[in-house]
């Protein structure tokens, strides 16, 4: 049979399987895709702490086919990267795909959705965050008056405690009732 080069050790695979929503084969497929982005940086088998140390920079990550057309791609990479700048290690990438997979429960997706839409990171979705989101979604086509009106409407609909921005509880209350959330917040690898 010859020497079969193993990508991950058995222990590593089992750890990943327990901590994410993926099976073994899916984890290996994720590794293959990770390698395809930058094959010069990522080795064929990840030993020791390479899954944590080797990072792919944001610019290369944004070229991944699944993220290429996503208006929130840079924000997604920022949220899942440990250094906060969008450079993803393998574990970060696995985490990202695990949260966006079909088996992840609603609560985890809502949690990360909140962090993605909170552009300035102040634990609240304020009007600037909403402005930014609308601008990214419509490629900047809406006029500023329309954008302001929409922002006001959103805050009016969702804000309960009257502070003019959405906290995590309010966001969760709104999103959990959305029937489309689970099907749209989903990346298939």
């Amino acid at each position, binding site marked *: 049979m010859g020497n079969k080069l193993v990508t991950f050790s058995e222990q590593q695979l089992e750890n990943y399987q*327990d901590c994410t929503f993926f099976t073994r084969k899916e984890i290996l497929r994720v590794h293959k895709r990770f390698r395809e982005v930058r094959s010069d940086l990522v080795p064929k088998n990840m030993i020791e702490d390479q899954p944590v140390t080797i990072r792919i920079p944001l610019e290369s990550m944004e070229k991944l086919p699944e993220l290429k057309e996503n*208006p929130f791609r840079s924000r997604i990479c920022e949220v899942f990267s440990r250094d906060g700048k969008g450079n993803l290690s393998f574990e970060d990438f696995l985490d990202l795909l695990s949260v966006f997979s079909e088996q992840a429960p609603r609560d985890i997706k809502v949690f990360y959705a909140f962090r993605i839409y909170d552009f300035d990171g102040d634990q609240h979705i304020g009007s600037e965050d909403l402005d930014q989101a609308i601008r990214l979604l419509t490629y900047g086509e*809406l006029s500023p008056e329309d954008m302001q009106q929409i922002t006001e409407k959103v805050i009016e609909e969702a804000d309960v405690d009257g502070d003019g921005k959405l906290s995590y509880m309010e966001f969760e209350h709104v999103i959990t009732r959305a029937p489309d959330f689970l099907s749209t917040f989903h990346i298939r690898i």
Partner: protein
Amino acid sequence: MQAAMDDIHLELNHVDTENSDMSIGGDSRFSSYRHRTVSLQRNSLANEMIGLRTMGRYKYHTNTLRSIRSPEDADTIVNQIQENVAKADDEQQADQLRREALRDMPQSLTIKRQVKQTLMLNEKSRGDNHSTIGCYKWAVYSIIILYSKLKASIYNFLYTFELWYLILKTLEGQFGSAVATFFRFFRSLFFLNLFTLVPTFFFIVLPQILQSNFGDEVVVDQESFSPADIFTGEGSLTNSVLFYGHYTNETIKLAKYEYDMPYAYLFTMFVSYVIGFIVLSYSTAKSFRKNFIETKGGSKNVFAHKIFCSWDFGIATEDAATLKSSVIYHELRELLDQWNSPRTKASCASRFFTVCTNFAVNLLILFVLMGIAFGMWILLDKNRLNDDNEHIGMITAVVINVTILVFPLFFTIVGFCEDYKSPRNSFFVNLTRTILLEIVVIGILVAYWITSASKVECWETCLGQEIYRLVIFEFIFSIVFLPMTEIVRFLLNKNFPSTFDPPEFNINRYTLQILYNQTLFWIGLYFSPLLSAIVVLKLFVSWYLTTFTVLHCCKPSSKTWRAAQTETLFLIMAFLNLIMVMTCLGYVVASVETSGCGPFRSFEYVYNLVKEGILGLEQGQTILKTIIYVTKPGVVALIILMMCMGVYYLDAKSRAQDAMVKLLRNMLINEAKDKEFLLTRISLATQGRYNLQENPLEGSPMRQRRMREDLGDSGTEVLLPSHRVNI
């Protein structure tokens, strides 16, 4: 001031870690009230969240966890998990809880891994002194663990064989998740039919073939095979394994083995239908729960949903992204326009007019359906009487298929005259009418042949032949007609882009076609066992054709399609169709006398096979008496009544909890207003000594307590109205 702020920061963090379930730190005046509110809130919300296990899911409060970035803080998580898990009864449950908590924790993977390692080390060190559990419990838990391991390995195994994965991914990237959902539905139906094929082929068809070729029976002389037979199902195919009539009612004897054909036939059919029923009911219930029940209630948040949930994260091509973005833009504009210039409430006269038109249109459609039924009956009669003209069978099938294709368009056109409140309502009404049309067509077919049972020699074979013809012609139509229209429109659009629009992928039409096909298959399986092979082949070819057409000729639709709820709707309709088919077949088995052909020739009614053959029951025995008593209409009605009462009770409970949620939400809003009121009073009372700024920490009761202490209680006693509310 800065020192005070730092102090408050620290206190808040301290309070947060202590009472990690409360959202605002506790204080004497507020905490008891808030504690009650929050715990009530938690309880009712916890009850409301369907799908929670009895041990509960532990929601780790996000404030604590969000700030954790370094590995040292992993210890805090470990401690939290250990505390919560200590409430568990024994080791196995604790283990499972730990694993669940780990997976559902919203933390980065690196930290989770470290937490897991720490937990494992702790476990190992405690390993030897866990309490002994009884033999029975140990057996139960090892079965549960084995089962979950088995499930994981099955998923792993199935993953290697994921069929058509690449095509689905390309479709999703180009068209969005709605289209991908449709094709996944298509694929699951394909697999369901494949699994029905396996038992029917191996237990029914194969023994019959072996018997005809190697058995001792006298071979009936076959008519010669002509190509037209493939389309009509008559001629040489009448007396073949394709149809019910050919199957023997004797025990097949080959070498030393005996094989009872009638029993095999009945039980294999029963098992196939029951498996299909179980699988379909399970997926329908799961889909309904996920898409309708869990998203019920709450206020209408149109704008918020549009912003946060409308972008499809599966889109991977530039065209689809630009299209999606412009769709979102247009929808936002539309919503704004609707808001700025709302539709005035219709006057009494126009509402009356709308009701009248709706009624008239429904009446018209009813008449059309009755006309179709009557026309079909006459056609079938003519078909049966004109046996010498071979082609009339084909004409019937063609006419029926054309009806199925043309009348839905007619319904859509008529539907334009009506005025429904939302496009979703009109879509739903259209769908119902089309499904009704299909039910009428298939129902008339079956009813005709059951009532003509005495007039023909082998009515089951005749019915089987009719359905076979329908399936074949539907295949031809769906290969030739539908893709051809798309390809033609695509070519026209390429050459004359200004006059013709490129074809859009119409999920509605394709799904109805699939549903029709599936219903035909289910009703035809009993009368033609080999139909499963034909349908599987048909679905296989159809898949490649449809995906090819869609990928190369169609452009993504510009209408947003609510994929999740529509998928549930289609599953429900498929399920209802299956129930109707099974009722129909139940009637055939129980109340229709067998004809002179087929595997049940020797019994008067088909169910006699079970009654006499297996159970050996005769008149007067107690078991027989109880069975007859239980199947009396009165008892069945009583059972159905009790089930309805159970459903009503659960529905009332859920409505009560909905009302509770509304009440609690109003209380939250009142709380916020009270807070504002308090702050303004304090600002007045201190004569502006403490300036109020826009600051999230500002409104915390911690700060207010501090301020009151500083002032030496100079403020007036404030009685808040909301404190008087009794829960």
